[in-house]
Structures are given as structure tokens and as C-alpha cells.
């Protein structure tokens, strides 16, 4: 049986998780003050908490994680003794095999259909987060190959792989950033305050905003319904609304998840990589990928694109490397043509942007900054929206149908989607840009004591509104979209 996720797990949106954080925090304080070797004891406590957390998803998942950790640790020692390309390839091969068996085989076997299943295929599990922690293991091996000064103990390495805030869906961490923090975390009052703020913000983004966009306010509304209803078809306007809705649903879902995870780690004095930074304000595709799923895009840049691009000096190869790297990025999400085509589209967008930059330089074209920024933003935003249609479509046939509606101007006369969903999507998208603008304005006025005092005085109102909304909307059993990757 293909087991894709724990049916009864300790997830980030449960009350158990909200109890789990202070419990581990108190135990950490206790261990720090009572034991003679607090560092070791603290690491062991966190490792035990991480394994307990992951085991609630499935004991089988935990077994795979432990085996992967042990083998990768051994591979690290083997590579450190003599960092050769051959030894690195052994490590890469092992991790790719892990991904092939545990991430892609269950999907491929389900595509084979009845009658083609062997006992082995039917019993392969799909451990949640496998693509995230396998990429962490790979980055560790790459860093050792580059002769970075890394000397994690077995406990530290296992903790790096299983650290409970990140084990389900990242952010994809790097050993050089985490190791010093595992050894000497120093949570301050600021860390705890900021951590709690981010957890509340993340819960609000996921439980309220992403939920409203994904499932709608009423049955028969929402992005999921809009994409899954094939019977009525779509008009051009519907496709744009669905693209906007899905882009923001994904953003609130995954950025919300990232906020909860980063906030949790922050409470324990661990600063994780940021994963999102206002991606929809990007003025070019290249900038977008420094603001969206940053931990994975930088991983792809450092460990796939750079080695590929430096392989041959020709310009065409650099462009090809971009497309290949982005196709791999797409394939990382799953063995589906929609993801691969989405990756190829992203690669082509990046190449087009580079070509335009070269054209600008060669022709000495100088657009007024406002035109350049606004035009760049509009083109990037629209291009990203359209690429999300391919990403979310159930198959390429559906994507083709939706694009067909987009290019037929006669299909722009009315909406098939419920008006309420259209209204809600527009309101949420416009609010995002208004709030982003206000936040930038507030950042510019940060030094003003009046602004600081107003922000401080009003923050309890914002917190309580957010908490009340989270509690009310927690009636819906929500699942993070990125858990499936």
C-alpha cells in the first residue's frame, strides 16, 4: 500500500503542536540548567523530540529517515577522508536512489494501474518531507566536497536531518548555518517575541487566507473547486482569477507554513533561512526566484545551476543550464509532466529576461525607472500567474484547455466561477499589495517614535483579531499544500 502521509500525525496546525512547543522549550531550559554537559543533553533532547514528532506521522517514515541519516553521515566521513568526485557521486547516487524509491516509485507504480503491481511496489511508502531532508543531506555532501570545515557529531547530523520544525517541508537548511546554532543557541527575549509573532502570522496566513482561497467561503467555491470542475469549462476571465487565486493560495499556504517553522525555531534561538520575501513585488523573473521558496531556489542555484553553467563557457550552455536547472526544480515537486513543463517555462522566462537585459545593454536602451519597474512588475506578475496554471492543472490537457480559453477573446464576456469567489480573490490580492505598500511605508518611517508607539499600542488588537480568526477558521481541517512534495 502506498502510504503518502500519516493519517493521525502531529501537524503544525494542531493544538498538540501548540502544546509541544512550550513543552520542549521548558525541557530545554531544564536540561540547560541541570545537566553537566548541556550542549550534548540539549541536542539529544531535540533529536528525541524530532524523532517523536516524525514518528507520529509514521514509524516507517522514521525508519527511512534514520537509515538515510546514518548512511549519509557515513558517506560524509568517507568523502571527508578523500574528497574526490567519485566519492561524491557515490553519495549523490545514494540520495537520488532514495528519492527514486521513496518519492517517485510510489507515484509511478500508481500510474501503472491494476495488475502491474508487485508486492514491493505496493508496499513502498512515501515518507513526508523526503525530498526536503534528502536535499539537506546532499548539500552536506557537496559542502564537504568543497572542503568546508564541517565536523558534526552523529547526533548533530541526525538532528540536522530530522530537526522537527523543518523535517516536513523545509526550509531546506545548510549544515554550515545550523551547526554553530545547534552548539550554542542563545534565545533572547527578542527571539521569543519574534518567534511567537511569526507563528501567529503563519497560522493566520494558512488557516484564514489560504483556506478561504483554496476552499472558498461556501461549498462549490475556491481554487480547488475551480480547477477540479471540468464540466463547465472556463472563460478567459475565470483562468485569470484562478491563476491569481492559486498563486496567492500557494503563497499564503507555504509562506504561512514557513513562518510557523521559522518562528518555532526562533523560539529556541535557532535562526533559519527565510523562504519568502514579498515575491509578488518582484520586477523580474530572476528577482522572483530570490523571493519565492528561497531556500530551495538557492539550493538549485548553488548545487545544480552553478556546476552545470561552469561546465562549458558558451552562452548558449548557460541558458540551457538555466532551463535544465528549472526543469529539475519542477521535477523535484513530483513525477508529473505539469511540473516539468512548469519548470521549463520558468527556465525560458529566466533566459528571456537575460536576453532582454543584454538587448538593453547593447542598444543602450534606457527606460524611465517608473516604466521599467512597473512594466517589469506587470510582465513578471502575469507570466508567473500563467505558469502557475500549468503547475496546478490536473494534467497537461487541462492546462491546454485553460490556455485555449485565455487566447480566445470571445471567452472574456462572463465568469463561470461563482461571483463571490471572484470578489474574494480580487479583495485578497488587492489587500496584499496595499498591505505590502503600507509595510514599506512603515519601514521607512521606522525611526519615528510616533509610528513606533502607534504600532506598539495597536499590536494587541491585531494579535487578538488574528487569534480569534484562527480559532474560528480552525474548524476546517486544513493540510499544507507542500506536504505532498
Amino acid at each position, binding site marked *: 500500500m502506498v502510504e503518502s502521509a500519516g493519517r*493521525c500525525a502531529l501537524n503544525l496546525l*494542531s*493544538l498538540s503542536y501548540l502544546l509541544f512547543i512550550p513543552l520542549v522549550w521548558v525541557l530545554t531550559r531544564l536540561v540547560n540548567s541541570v545537566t553537566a554537559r548541556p550542549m550534548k543533553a540539549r541536542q539529544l533532547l531535540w533529536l528525541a523530540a524530532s524523532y517523536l514528532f516524525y514518528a507520529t506521522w509514521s514509524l516507517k517514515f522514521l525508519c527511512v529517515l534514520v537509515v538515510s541519516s546514518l548512511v549519509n553521515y557515513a558517506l560524509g566521513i568517507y568523502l571527508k577522508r578523500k574528497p574526490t568526485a567519485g566519492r561524491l557521486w557515490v553519495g549523490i547516487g545514494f540520495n537520488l536512489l532514495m528519492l527514486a524509491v521513496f518519492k517517485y516509485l510510489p507515484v509511478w507504480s500508481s500510474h501503472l494501474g491494476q495488475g502491474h503491481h508487485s508486492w514491493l511496489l505496493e508496499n513502498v511508502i512515501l515518507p513526508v518531507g523526503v525530498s526536503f531532508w534528502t536535499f539537506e543531506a546532499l548539500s552536506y555532501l557537496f559542502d564537504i566536497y568543497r572542503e568546508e570545515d564541517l565536523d558534526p557529531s552523529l547526533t548533530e547530523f541526525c538532528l540536522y536531518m530530522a530537526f522537527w520544525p523543518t523535517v516536513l517541508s523545509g526550509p531546506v537548511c545548510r549544515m554550515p548555518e545550523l551547526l554553530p546554532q545547534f552548539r550554542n543557541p542563545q534565545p533572547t527575549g527578542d527571539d521569543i517575541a519574534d518567534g511567537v509573532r511569526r507563528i501567529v502570522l503563519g497560522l493566520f496566513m494558512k488557516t484564514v487566507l489560504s483556506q478561504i482561497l483554496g476552499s472558498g467561503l461556501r461549498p462549490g467555491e475556491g481554487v480547488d473547486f475551480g480547477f477540479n470542475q471540468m464540466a463547465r469549462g472556463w472563460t478567459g476571465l475565470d483562468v485569470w482569477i484562478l491563476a491569481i487565486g492559486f498563486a496567492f493560495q500557494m503563497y499564503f499556504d507555504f509562506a504561512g507554513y514557513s513562518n510557523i517553522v521559522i518562528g518555532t525555531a526562533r523560539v529556541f534561538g535557532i535562526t533559519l533561512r527565510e523562504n519568502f520575501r514579498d515575491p509578488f513585488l518582484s520586477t523580474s523573473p530572476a528577482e522572483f526566484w530570490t523571493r519565492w521558496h528561497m531556500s530551495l531556489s538557492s539550493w538549485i542555484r548553488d548545487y545544480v545551476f552553478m556546476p552545470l553553467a561552469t561546465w562549458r563557457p558558451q552562452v548558449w550552455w548557460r541558458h540551457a543550464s538555466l532551463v535544465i536547472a528549472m526543469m529539475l526544480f519542477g521535477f523535484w515537486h513530483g513525477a508529473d509532466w505539469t511540473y516539468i513543463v512548469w519548470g521549463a517555462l520558468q527556465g525560458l522566462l529566466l533566459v528571456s529576461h537575460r536576453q532582454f537585459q543584454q538587448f538593453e545593454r547593447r542598444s543602450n536602451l534606457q527606460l524611465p525607472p517608473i516604466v521599467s519597474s512597473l512594466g517589469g512588475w506587470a510582465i513578471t506578475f502575469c507570466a508567473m500567474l500563467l505558469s502557475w496554471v500549468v503547475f496546478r492543472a490536473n494534467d497537461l490537457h487541462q492546462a491546454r484547455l485553460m490556455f485555449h480559453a485565455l487566447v480566445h477573446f470571445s471567452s472574456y464576456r462572463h465568469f*463561470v466561477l461563482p461571483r463571490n469567489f471572484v*470578489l474574494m480573490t480580487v479583495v485578497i490580492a488587492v489587500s496584499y499589495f496595499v498591505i505590502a505598500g503600507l509595510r514599506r511605508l512603515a519601514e521607512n518611517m521606522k525611526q519615528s517614535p510616533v509610528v513606533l508607539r502607534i504600532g*506598539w499600542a495597536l499590536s*494587541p488588537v491585531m494579535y*487578538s483579531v488574528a487569534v*480569534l480568526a484562527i*480559532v474560528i477558521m480552525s474548524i476546517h481541517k486544513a493540510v499544507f499544500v507542500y506536504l505532498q512534495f
Partner: protein
Amino acid sequence: MTEVKTSTPGAGAAASARRMTALRRGYVVAMSLLLTVLAGNWLATVAGQNIYEKDEARTDRQFVAPAPGLSPADLAEGQAVLTPGEAPSTRAQLFYLGDSQVFSRPDAPPGALNSAQWLQILLARQDDRAVRVRIGASPGMDISEMLLKALSAAEQNPRQDDVIVTDLALAEMRELGVRAEITSLAAQPTVNSDLKSLISSNPDLRDADKTLEALLTPQQESGNPAADKSLAEKIEDTLQRKADSWSFFAQRENLVGLGLLRYAQWEHRLLHITADKRIPTHAEPYRTNVQLLELLMRYAQARDMHLVLFFGPVRSIEPNPDDPDDLERMHRDVLRLCERYSATATCLDYSHLIPEGMWAEYSSNQRGAFALMAGQHDFYHYTEAAHQALAEKIVSDAGSKILQWSNQPAGAH
């Protein structure tokens, strides 16, 4: 000495800054908690009042009030429709389907009768041991939901349904989408297997099959879900129960309902939504619903059940949400199906049965979303008198056949 002199004021300032930061944080935490508790309790009170009203309304509908012309036996028959669990298996089972039109009486006082109860009373007056009417109608029901309810009812009862009586309205053919509470019926093993065999034996009705395939869920392997729960699940359940002791937490579902109602109020104002606004009938869901209706007819035929379909009453004033062309197309398509399955299906046309004076108007006294359209014409619901008229017409047109079928029961379990 100099060092000490310079560092002391700095340390004092740092300590004072730390105290200020701690105070500020304390204010944010304390005020946030206070506001959350106060606002939460207030919201819980508002929601509590709302649920009290809902319970009251439910109680109103759970009894039959004595009225002139109703004998004690009539009252007992009308009451029995509300308590289907007590239906004796010796009687023929009549399953009454449709949308809210067949049971909602916006003008009626508590305990008033709907068309299903009138049908029961009128049939019982002719033969008090022949038929038991059970209501399967739900507000806003579409044909896929109808089919699923018919399948589930046929499997659940001590005696298989002998007759299905259902109204057909354009509104039922416009939408596609089975609500969660009706989808859950498909998880019952017998309904699930019935659905599977229905899909596999009717490959020509592809759109209908696709809609039903989406309802098929993997069967639960264990009959005791509570025993299957992991420790993590049990802990979460306990925490949820504990959290329910805060009234605000316990009222979440009600608060969502209230929020939606308030939202609908604004939506109606903003988008100028009125009851008479024309509603388009899109080709694809309509075609799928017609196929689902055909599937229901085939199912009834295969199970030796009789099907009485009637075109529900239409309010014939303009402007009107129903497009006359759409109505005509529906009549044409359904009549064609009735001809094809005439051995078990009977079609009746009650489009013009209810005169204008018997239709309801939305009023501010109504609950929920209906109150939002106060002062407008109600195009779907009619008065209590119209319910009686509808039941009388069904009995006059098909009553003798129903009583005759009740003596030749369909395949008993």
C-alpha cells in the same frame, strides 16, 4: 575609578531600557490575551443566541399541529413522516425527493404540514396500511445528490423503496456538487458497491459516471475508528475537548455560519443580487444532470422500483430567475426519458399548478439568508395551502397507481 564612573550610568540606562522593553512586551501579551478573551466571550454569546434560535426552529418542525379537517389518525400519519425510523416494513416505502420546494413553508405557523405529510395523509385516508412516505428532500438538491440519497435509502431500510416520488426543478439541473453530508453516504459499503456497479454497467453515460466516480472513496478497513486512533490522535481529541470548555472555541461552527450570513448581506448589497435575477443554466452541468436522471431511471428499473417525476411548480411572473427556453429544454429532455423508461417512470407536469396568490414572499421574519431578500418575491417556495394542493394533485394523478404498486412490492431484502 574613571572606568567605573563612566560605566555605571551606561549600565543603569541599559537596565532601564530592559525594564521598558519587558514592560512593553508585558503590555502586548496581557492586552492581547484580555482582548481575545473578552471578544471571544462576546462572540460566543452572539453565536449561542443564534444556535438557540436554530434549535427552536428545529423543534417547530418536529411536531404536527392539530388543524380543522385533520383527524387524530391524520395527525399520527403526518407525525410518522417526521420519524422515519419507525416506518413499519409491512408498508410499501415511498421515498419523497426534491429540493426545499417540497417541504419548505415560509409562511406557515409551527407544526404546519408540508406536501410529503399531506401525501401520507391523503394516501392513508384511502388505505391506512398501504404506504409509508419518507422525506429524502434537501434544500438546493441536485440530481447527483438525489441519486445518492435514493441509493442509500434503498439499502438502509428494512424494506426496499417501492416508489420514488420526486419533483424536478430547473434549479436542480443547474448545479453539480455533492455536499459533504451527502457524500458521506457513498462511504457506506453497500452504497459504495451499488455506485460502482451502476458506473460499470452504464458506460454510455460518461459524464454521469465521472461525477459519481468522484464520490467513491476507499472503504474503511475497520469498523471501529475510535479503536484505530493513534496516541497522537487521542491526545489531539482530548485537547480539542478541553478547548471546547471555552465557549468561544465550542461555538466555532456557529460563528462560521453567522459570519457567512453577514458576508452574504454585504454581497447582496454590493453585487445587487435580487431574487428575480435571471440565473444562467450552463450546458455541461445540465447535460450531466440529465444523464444522472437517466441513471436514476435505470437504477429504479433494475431494482423494480416505480418512479413518479413531476415538474415542480413555477411562478409565472416576470422578471424571473428561470429562463423560459431553459425550462422548455428541460421539459423536452425529461419527457423523452420518461417515454424511454415508461415501464417504471411516470412524468407529471405541475409547472402551472400553483396560482400566483399561493406563492410566498420573502420577509424579515424569516431566518438566515431568506431574511436578506425581505420584500422580494420568492420564486421557489409556496404557502401551506399550495403544499396541500400539490399532494392532492399527486394523489389524484398517481394515487391509485401508488396504492396498486404497494400491493406488488419491489424486490424485498
